[in-house]
């Protein structure tokens, strides 16, 4: 934090600092675009392996350039705007979805040496740098804000198309993404509690001390539940299967992007896959220690960080693809039930438990007793909630019988 503040205070707009800033922007932009290209290829290859088929294998070695070829094809397609569309919003929507996807990556520390309490900064060309674009003090809130903003792209695209299937898609999108945002935020709160900071750099640093390198990672420290909730909510937030109701090809044809063609369609596509990459990176940062890992050489420790970061992200990318190949899609009401009746109460209960543990630490209470009481409380709360839901269902059924006979 101090290093970062010092960096901000000493920032010189006329010197190398600016050049580095621009270089970082260009680098992140390029890396993200290429990563999307590879991600699409990776997804198609992995899915085809799981489905006993070959997948793309013509464009480039192992079909690796397939996405590029598809992109070029889309670029030359005719761009259609439906008659009933709200032309301005229709054209605005793809950018609303793409730009937040780019911005989200800005706060992710992609490399750096975090071993032995180091803060992950490197000294290049006489400059002290963090290997992330920015590290604002409210860091992770930027991520929440951007993912919230990304919803507007999807929502407005469906609404502005002036067509029925996209409209249904965008109604689904707004309900789904808004409600899962809540679960996402609540599971993040647990991370804030343990790290005591919103800055991504600080969050990574707070995960570095523990046994066997991985002992300090939040995924263990917070007891898995926040991570699982975050993973489920993130999948829903990304519109990835099994939560891809917004697109649901079999139901809504293409959902919000049914009426889009050419480059505008590819922008949505780009944003979606970029979000997958970014969300995986955020998950690694929050729960798996980001670039933290064993540094096996004396110099160039930042490169090891890059390697660990890349491998961890790859695991999540694979997980998302795995979900897609395995799971059937949920129905709209089931999705809402999962979000509001399970994920949000559980995230809240777990957050309270972690809070109680924190208090216990300060007050010197017996931890085991606190955990036992806390779990009992969560269990009791769960029972009460189930009872309330069942009661509500019965009341509704009764009122329907009274009303309709």
């Amino acid at each position: 934090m101090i290093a970062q503040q010092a960096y901000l205070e000493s920032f010189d707009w006329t010197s190398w600092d600016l050049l580095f800033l621009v270089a970082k922007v260009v680098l992140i932009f390029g890396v993200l675009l290429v990563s999307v290209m590879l991600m699409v290829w990776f997804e198609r290859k992995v899915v085809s392996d799981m489905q006993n088929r070959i997948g793309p294998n013509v464009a480039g070695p192992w079909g690796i350039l397939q996405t590029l070829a598809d992109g070029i094809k889309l670029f030359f397609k005719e761009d259609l705007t439906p008659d009933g569309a709200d032309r301005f919003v229709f054209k605005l929507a793809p950018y609303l979805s793409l730009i937040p996807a780019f911005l989200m990556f800005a706060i992710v520390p992609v490399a750096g040496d975090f071993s032995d309490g180091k803060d992950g900064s490197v000294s290049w060309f006489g400059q002290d740098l963090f290997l992330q674009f920015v590290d604002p003090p409210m860091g992770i809130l930027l991520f929440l804000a951007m993912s919230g903003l990304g919803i507007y792209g999807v929502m407005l695209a469906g609404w502005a198309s002036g067509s029925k299937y996209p409209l249904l898609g965008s109604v689904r999108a707004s309900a789904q993404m808004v409600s899962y945002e809540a679960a996402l935020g609540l599971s993040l709160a647990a991370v804030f509690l343990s790290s005591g900071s919103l800055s991504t750099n600080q969050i990574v640093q707070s995960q570095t001390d523990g046994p066997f390198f991985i002992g300090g990672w939040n995924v263990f420290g917070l007891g898995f539940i926040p991570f699982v909730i975050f993973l489920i909510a993130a999948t829903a937030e990304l519109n990835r299967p099994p939560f891809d109701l917004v697109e649901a090809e079999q139901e809504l044809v293409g959902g919000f992007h049914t009426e889009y063609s050419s480059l505008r369609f590819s922008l949505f596509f780009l944003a979606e896959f970029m979000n997958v990459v970014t969300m995986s990176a955020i998950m690694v940062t929050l729960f798996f220690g980001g670039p933290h890992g064993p540094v096996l050489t004396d110099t160039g420790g930042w490169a090891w960080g890059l390697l660990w970061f890349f491998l961890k992200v790859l695991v999540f990318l694979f997980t998302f693809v795995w979900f897609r190949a395995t799971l059937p899609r949920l129905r709209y009401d089931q999705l809402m039930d999962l979000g509001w009746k399970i994920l949000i109460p559980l995230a809240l209960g777990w957050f309270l438990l972690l809070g109680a543990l924190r208090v216990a630490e300060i007050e010197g209470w017996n931890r085991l007793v606190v955990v036992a009481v806390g779990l009992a409380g969560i269990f009791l709360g769960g029972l009460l909630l189930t009872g309330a839901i069942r009661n509500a269902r019965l009341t509704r059924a009764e009122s329907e019988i009274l009303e309709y006979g």
Partner: protein
Amino acid sequence: MTIADKPSTTDAPIAQESSGFVGTDDRVRSRDSAVLRMSEAEVGELSLDPTHELGESKMLINMGPSHPSTHGVLRLMLELEGETVLRSKPVIGYLHTGMEKTGEQLTYLQGCTNVTRMDYASPLFTELAFSLAVESLLDMDIPERATWIRMMMCELNRMASHLLFMATNGMDLGAVSMMIYGWREREPLLRFFEKVTGLRMNHNYIRPGGVAADLPDGWQDDLVEYLDAVEERLEEYDILMTGQPIWRERLQGVGVLNEAECLALGVTGPLLRASGSSWDLRRDMPYLVYDQVDFDVLVGSYGDSFDRYAIRLNEIRESMRIVRQCIERMPSGDYRAQDKKVTPPPRARIDESMEALIHHFKIFTEGYKVPAGEAYAAVESPRGELGVYIVSDGSSTPYRMHVRAPSFVNLQALPHLMENGLLADAVAVISSVDPIMGEVDR
């Protein structure tokens, strides 16, 4: 039309035992049922008018004929409130090519080529029903081996059709891998069909008088190998789908039809059996030699989409049982009846005998005359009771041919199955009815 306008059912008992069937069919018999009784033109006009008479909260939406999950060219007009389907109307005819009418121009020998194109997912069954009807008009006896070959090929075809259902049902519910797995298991079957009949689909294999060709050498080994492999694959399906919580959530309690409603609508096949009615033509009105093989008729208890899925999955296993029995007990003998009036001479004879050549030529140009009369033959196709009704005026072409296509009849249950479900349920329901549009439109 909302639920409020429906006749009150509070005083009616939920299960009406007097009819002898489980449940009551009031729901489907009522005029105010789930069927959207409007013409396409009316719906077209209303859906363009935002202030239509249905009210602001309702939307008329058109699903199909080109929609990813309408199984070809089925078109549905849906009245939606939010995502809830209130009323719907299936619109058919987009694949209509007048096959029944064409059948009147074709000789009985050519007839199979025509009818095999109706249900393209299980072509052998239409061929079989057609052949059985013609044979009953001709009053022919079929060699035992031909009968067993027919039965075995039909059961293999039932497996292929149900595997295709597994694929499309998985696809419609978003389990995309299942689509490929279903096709993967169906593929060796199609290859086997190609080996036996020369074609992967539209075989024209079962013909009046027997089958077109004998089974190739080594067919037993091919089949045993395949059956052993597919048995394991079906276990995988159980893991991937049957036991999968999301899968169960999506299908259980969706699209429920009770026994009385099924019978009122004339629904047959897995849909009827799912509702608890144990009706299978193979057992209840045996044709071919189904009375000599051992198999179970599977019955569901809830009449929902999950039961229909489970019945089809396990019918694959039952078909495998029958096929295994066929492999063991396949009798030797001729593969077609040696009736000079109906069966063409063998290919080899044509090279050496002028009479054989003339005989061959006459049979294929003029066909053979079938005594005047009418006949109906029904078989249990993968989709239900498939019947062919033929009226003959004594010439070599049918005077009238009608096909009782199970897909066509089952399709009229769609509005009732979809009623008050969500749009996603509508997709699951279409999939679980498993209509083949070629058969619907004929």
